[in-house]
């Protein structure tokens, strides 16, 4: 029988390969579970995925609860909802904490589970901790109390200018989704042993109301975005695929640099998905990030806002990126980039 008191993680896999967020969630769950003196359970859902359970143990899980069913071959809200509810019912006692990824799956599924359970959910966390909380409850005296060992779900708010600690001490599970690339995964330990439980769930007719016709995903080998010291990214403002020549040219003046891109540039087939920075691409934090013709939509921002130095070139003085970059130049990137290249080379030459 699996331990219902563990910290639970809903694993994410796509067509049989585990997603990066899962190892990060397990890392966070281990940190929390050690403070609580308990273990980590992973929920693994899909079809023909049982072989992934052992890898989750190597990543730090103590137990893996698997539902392997043909209905779960492609992610769909209602079948996965039923599967997670099925596991929670199987456990009987709700886990203290359930973590999911702040991905297009986690942000689709977690709110439904939380609403079903009538419990709290904190979206898009960047840090977690365990601590105490005293609720004074002037306006809601029935909720007053002194709570011990509560999940601190910490997230940016008000356009990233503040951090907030959100608590849900009244009910378990306390649920949260975590942003990709911000919590630390543990080193893989192939000698770790854990328990694996296979359970089944009965899908109802109403669970099959969503038909996934097709999923198109580019899973090309990754560009070394996460290790590069300098990233020069191009966006839709390039206007044409050939624009990336200018991006590459500017990148070439830096040591250890790579080319990045916005989703819109990738969706336009100007460059491969492997270059995409952002919520549904890579999370990066290079020493220098240069954005050429990128507006700075929230989903791009979350992938690069932690870069040490952000320089943006945009012809629109009102572009959001010119609010959160460190330096911004208002102008046509086709004029600015070559001048910038020359000036950077000159600056380096003067130094020596």
């Amino acid at each position: 029988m699996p331990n219902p008191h563990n910290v639970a993680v809903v694993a994410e896999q796509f067509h049989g390969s585990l997603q990066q967020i899962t190892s990060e969630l397990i890392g966070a769950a281990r940190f929390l579970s050690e403070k609580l003196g308990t273990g980590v359970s992973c929920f693994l859902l899909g079809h023909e995925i049982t072989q992934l359970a052992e890898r989750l143990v190597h990543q730090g899980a103590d137990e893996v609860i698997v539902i392997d069913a043909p209905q779960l071959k492609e992610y769909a809200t209602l079948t996965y909802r039923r599967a997670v509810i099925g596991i929670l019912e199987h456990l009987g006692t709700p886990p203290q904490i359930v973590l999911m990824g702040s991905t297009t799956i986690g942000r689709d599924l977690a709110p439904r589970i939380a609403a079903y359970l009538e419990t709290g959910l904190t979206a898009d966390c960047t840090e977690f901790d365990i601590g105490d909380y005293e609720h004074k409850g002037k306006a809601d005296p029935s909720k007053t109390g002194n709570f011990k060992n509560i999940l601190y779900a910490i997230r940016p708010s008000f356009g990233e200018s503040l951090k907030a600690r959100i608590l849900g001490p009244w009910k378990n599970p306390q649920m949260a989704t975590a942003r990709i690339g911000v919590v630390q995964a543990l080193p893989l330990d192939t000698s770790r042993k854990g328990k694996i439980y296979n359970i089944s769930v009965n899908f109802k007719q109403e669970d099959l109301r969503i038909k996934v016709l097709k999923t198109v995903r580019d899973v090309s080998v990754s560009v070394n975005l996460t290790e590069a010291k300098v990233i020069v990214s191009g966006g839709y403002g390039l206007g044409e695929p050939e624009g990336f020549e200018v991006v590459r040219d500017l990148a070439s003046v830096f040591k250890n640099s790579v080319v990045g891109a916005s989703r819109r540039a990738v969706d336009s087939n100007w460059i491969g998905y492997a270059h995409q920075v952002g919520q549904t691409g890579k999370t990066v934090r290079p020493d220098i990030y240069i954005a050429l013709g990128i507006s700075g939509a929230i989903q791009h921002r979350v992938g690069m806002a932690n870069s040490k130095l952000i320089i943006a070139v945009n012809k629109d003085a009102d572009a959001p990126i010119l609010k959160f970059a460190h330096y911004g130049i208002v102008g046509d990137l086709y004029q600015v980039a070559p001048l910038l290249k020359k000036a950077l080379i000159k600056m380096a030459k003067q130094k020596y």
Partner: protein
Amino acid sequence: MPDTSSKAGVNPDGTIDRARAKRMLNPFDRYALQKALEIKRDSGAEVTCVAMGPPPAVEVLIEAFEHGADYGILLTDKRLAASDTLATAYALHKVVHYLGDFDVILTGLQTTDGDTAQVGPQIAERLNIPQITYCEHLSISDRILNGQRIVEGGNQEIEVHLPVLITVANSATPLDYKRFADVAAVKEFLRHPEERDKRIRTVSLDTIGANPNRTGLLGSPTVVGKTWKIGDVGGSCIVFKGESIEREVDELMERLRTDGRGVEELINA
């Protein structure tokens, strides 16, 4: 669907600052309104906008009318104050029940202040209907909706029977900042109380039969424990703009030379 939690446009004394009030429609909800109006154009559907917030939030509904929405509901009640997403979704799903029949519910992806993206799916859960989140494109025929949603590295095509809830991606078609409906006509009906009441209904928790214990502070399972400012992310951008690009680049280089960030160390010399 329009968001009203934004404080922009409301003066400290609670009155509306007309010049700024235009911004009250949550930017993410502009994509949802645009999709609703496209559905109306293609199928003749009626568009009803729901706003939950203090009385000045009616401005949001008026803005929606000026774009071509047909009806508006304002849910306003002091007991809604400090609702978290679960409590907000509870209240909004009660409004849907109160309205009766519907085929498609559209919400924005998220709000700019909360940005949780939870309210849409939580309404769908309470209504026990399917959802398509992060939806960019959709088409409806024979009561079947085909939608394309964003996923990591690609897209997914989904088919569902109506009714369904859609959260519209901010990479979908944006609403034009120009009004395309007849602004004068909206002004006109606002002058006639009877017509106005037909188009805009203001309801309280009691009107919609919602349980006040499930809204506001009482109905919210989460609480904000503590907030603190973070570093220099946001708001501190130094923007170079002037008559000549050369000058701008020179000014930037001067900064880079003196700001101690060591940019020159990373350049191939």
